[in-house]
């Protein structure tokens, strides 16, 4: 549980109230389990219908889920351990969620922990990223 609380200080309380959390034990070691999170083609076999996203911190792309397409930002990658994605609905950019997939060693193999919580619930980020020059120009 502790491993899923690194991103935001207020996480324990937020998780207690709002997060959706699921676990699955995979019957093989963590290094064999990692491609299921770390490779887009593998993510397409169970998580999403289509993953047009490089699994690299800061990468942006799209993920097509059963419920619709989402803009995706790779917030954190710890190879072999953890992937955090920030997903937003292009039709409603305010309705975003944070999806964290974490692998832990357990006696039976590897425990996959998934946590999804609405971004409204998180404390504001320390500083908003500046708009790109192209975007700023387009807005002028």
């Amino acid at each position: 549980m502790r491993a899923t609380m690194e991103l935001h200080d207020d996480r324990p309380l937020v998780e207690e109230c709002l997060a959706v959390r699921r676990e699955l034990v995979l019957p093989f070691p963590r290094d064999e389990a990692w491609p299921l999170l770390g490779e887009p083609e593998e993510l397409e076999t169970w998580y999403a219908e289509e993953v047009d996203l490089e699994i690299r911190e800061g990468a942006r792309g799209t993920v097509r889920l059963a419920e619709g397409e989402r803009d995706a930002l790779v917030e954190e990658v710890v190879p072999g351990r953890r992937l955090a994605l920030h997903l937003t609905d292009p039709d409603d950019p305010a309705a975003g969620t944070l999806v964290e997939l974490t692998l832990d060693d357990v006696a039976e193999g590897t425990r996959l922990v998934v946590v999804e919580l609405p971004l409204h619930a998180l404390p504001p980020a320390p500083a908003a990223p500046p708009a790109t020059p192209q975007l700023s120009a387009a807005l002028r």
Partner: protein
Amino acid sequence: MSTPQDAVAGVVFAALADPTRRAVVRRLSQGGTATASSLAAEMPVTRQAIAKHLGALRAAGLVVAEPAGREVRYRLTPAPFAEAMLWMASTGARWDERLARLEQRLAQRTGGA
């Protein structure tokens, strides 16, 4: 596609993003109604701060204010929580489906090995 339910859930989540407001909601969920003063007496914050948080919870439709003599008593309204619960239930159901798919795929892989 986002739905009106998503919008309501968003307002609820924003209102609950603050730990003091969550404490107020937790307290009201246990004990019926309370005044700003009685809540302030139970928590390490001023009455003014509590009044401000109650205002935010009212704006989100999570509590209603009811005059009672010279006091105003606050009470939880469950409807917006139902929307938040709906988000959690539908998101949870989608994860159950995904993990079932993953389990099935791993079973096939193990079976084929």
